[in-house]
């Protein structure tokens, strides 16, 4: 039976709550299911002590989750929109990320911060950002970006079992996507990119919410221009699986990186710089990037569409990459 991204996340939480009494959930309205319904029903099953509503105190609840992790729980914190981790960066960056290091390995922080990013339907400037590049730049954090229901399920289970703090970034456009989940338990490998579509003419690297769009664009580029692109879903940004990208590049010799975050200073820059450094001679053309315009996300749908990467821009980039260079 097809399962939605939302349900897949819930199944992962459900299984991990059942498996390990140290797993606890906290966040705003999580006992009522949370703003996106991911935790629906879990408070009823595991009690409001283990699926715990919090006040609107992003800083304190993140700090509290860090302290709880240090003291041996495995908290899964929901931060409703990634835009609000701006309120929790001290706790995430100065405390969670550095705890293990500063203590010389005495303590670790098995914490998952589930949050939700991306633009859709006019959520506007303060509810639409993609801020994963910040987190990728912080030693000590892991950054995971599930791109489908299966991935959401397997990666969330993997994240909860990690002993280091994970920022787990869901995408608002994906919650309603559906696909079959494995019948038996599955924990995804963390740090291994996934080839979503095989191809020979170019490599397109992406992650998270952009993945389905890139797959569609690749199909269209194949149909319309005969370009057979390989699509790689990074799955996680830390760890970053550059090897899988380079292996693909050794066959395609052309690379495009696509993400929804603004292009300037985004994850695509790191991927491009890293690949160009280790596989310069494999490149038959400049690495191209497609990301959002350097603009806050506008409210009006016409403007939102204009600043975000879309199928057309990805196809055009592929054409430029393969035909012109």
């Amino acid at each position, binding site marked *: 039976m097809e399962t939605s991204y939302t349900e897949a996340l819930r199944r992962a939480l459900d299984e991990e709550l059942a498996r390990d009494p140290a797993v606890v959930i906290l966040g705003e309205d999580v006992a009522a299911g949370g703003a996106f319904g991911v935790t629906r029903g879990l408070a009823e099953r595991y009690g409001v002590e283990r699926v715990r509503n919090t006040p*609107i*105190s992003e800083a304190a609840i993140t700090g509290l989750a860090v302290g709880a992790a240090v003291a041996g729980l495995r908290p899964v914190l929901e931060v409703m929109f990634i835009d609000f981790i701006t*309120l929790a960066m001290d706790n995430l960056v100065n405390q969670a990320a550095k705890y293990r290091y500063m203590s010389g390995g005495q303590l670790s922080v098995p914490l998952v911060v589930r949050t939700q990013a991306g633009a859709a339907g006019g959520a506007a*400037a303060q509810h639409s950002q993609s801020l994963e590049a910040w987190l990728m730049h912080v030693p000590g954090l892991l950054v995971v970006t599930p791109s489908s229901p299966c991935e959401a399920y397997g990666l969330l289970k993997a994240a909860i079992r990690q002993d280091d703090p994970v920022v787990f970034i869901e995408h608002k456009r994906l919650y309603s996507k559906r696909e079959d989940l494995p019948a038996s338990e599955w924990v995804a490998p963390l740090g291994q990119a996934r080839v979503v579509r095989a191809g020979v003419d170019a490599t397109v690297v992406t992650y998270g919410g952009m993945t389905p769009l890139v797959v569609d664009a690749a199909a269209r580029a194949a149909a319309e221009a005969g370009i057979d692109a390989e699509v790689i879903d990074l799955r996680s940004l830390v760890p970053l699986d550059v090897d899988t990208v380079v292996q693909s590049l050794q066959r395609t010799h052309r690379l495009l990186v696509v993400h929804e975050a603004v292009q300037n200073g985004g994850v695509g820059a790191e991927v491009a710089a890293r690949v160009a450094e280790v596989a310069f001679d494999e490149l038959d053309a400049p690495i191209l990037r497609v990301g959002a315009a350097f603009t806050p996300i506008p*409210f009006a749908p*016409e*403007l939102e569409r204009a600043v975000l990467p879309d199928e057309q821009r990805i196809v055009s980039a592929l054409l430029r990459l393969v035909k012109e260079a």
Partner: protein
Amino acid sequence: MSSPEVGNQDLCLSLYRMMVRIRLFEEQVGKLAAAGQVPGLTHLSTGQEAVAAGVCAVLRPQDYLFSGHRAHGHTLAKGSPVTAVLAEILGRETGLCRGRGGSMHLVDAARGMLGATGVVGGNIPLALGAAWAAQVRGEDRLAVVFFGDGASGNGVFHESLNLASLWRLPVLFVCENNGVAEFTQREEHSRVAFTSEFAKPYDIPVRVVDGNDVLAVYTAAQALVHWVRQAGGPAYLECQTYRLSGHYVGDAQAYRDKAELAAWRERDPLLRLQRQLLAQGVPAAELTAQAEAERQALAQALELARTAPPPAAAEASAYVYSCARETPTCP
């Protein structure tokens, strides 16, 4: 009603008219949103009109206003034209913010409405800043900030109380305590029922009023605003009220207590003022005429907003920086 203002019929009628305007506006936006014609998440202030109307009625045009995610009523009450507010919420180029901001980010600088923000509590220090600017320049101006009970969970609220009292900033804090934040009751957010308790250690003058009684709100706001202007320090108004709508348009409200809702419907601030006015001898026809005038103005505004052009895609990246994009030093 023992309020000293109750005899002032002009005032009462103008409060009535503003509350009708907001009520009709929110109902219209609710319908449009339910029909999928409003982008984004839309938060209505239905049931809380008395706070917006009562507080803003004591402000001067040059006073500064800040609000949060539930800002339509405040913006209208500060004097913004219905058409421009509606056009913004529909994402049109003719909107207050040229369609860039939307429902949660209304700004009408010319009327002192300096901004709404979608981050709960994020607006509070901004208001302090505007008040500070007035103080530094020696202007007779104050800043008012509206926020919900949930905002007291954000630490910046407490930091701001401290700063406002320490720097004696001319700012009026207005908490609309509707007893709920999204799907969760106040009791699950705090053991402290009244957010104004947090202002007391700072010696900030506090008034707690029935937020569904527009005259009570008006009277308390007037007293506090007077204090702020005279003493040049902050004051805190807490209005007990109730959100008759869902958290956002589309909220299934499974958490909602039906009996509670029914009880609060009885306390609808608009019906209450209506009853008072009728009791005072205002003819029913007068009220109907006023409401009808608002209804027509709204219909016109809707027509204008609906047919207004969306912003041009080519202008999507305008207004990010103040320098013209041609300037070589522009990013």
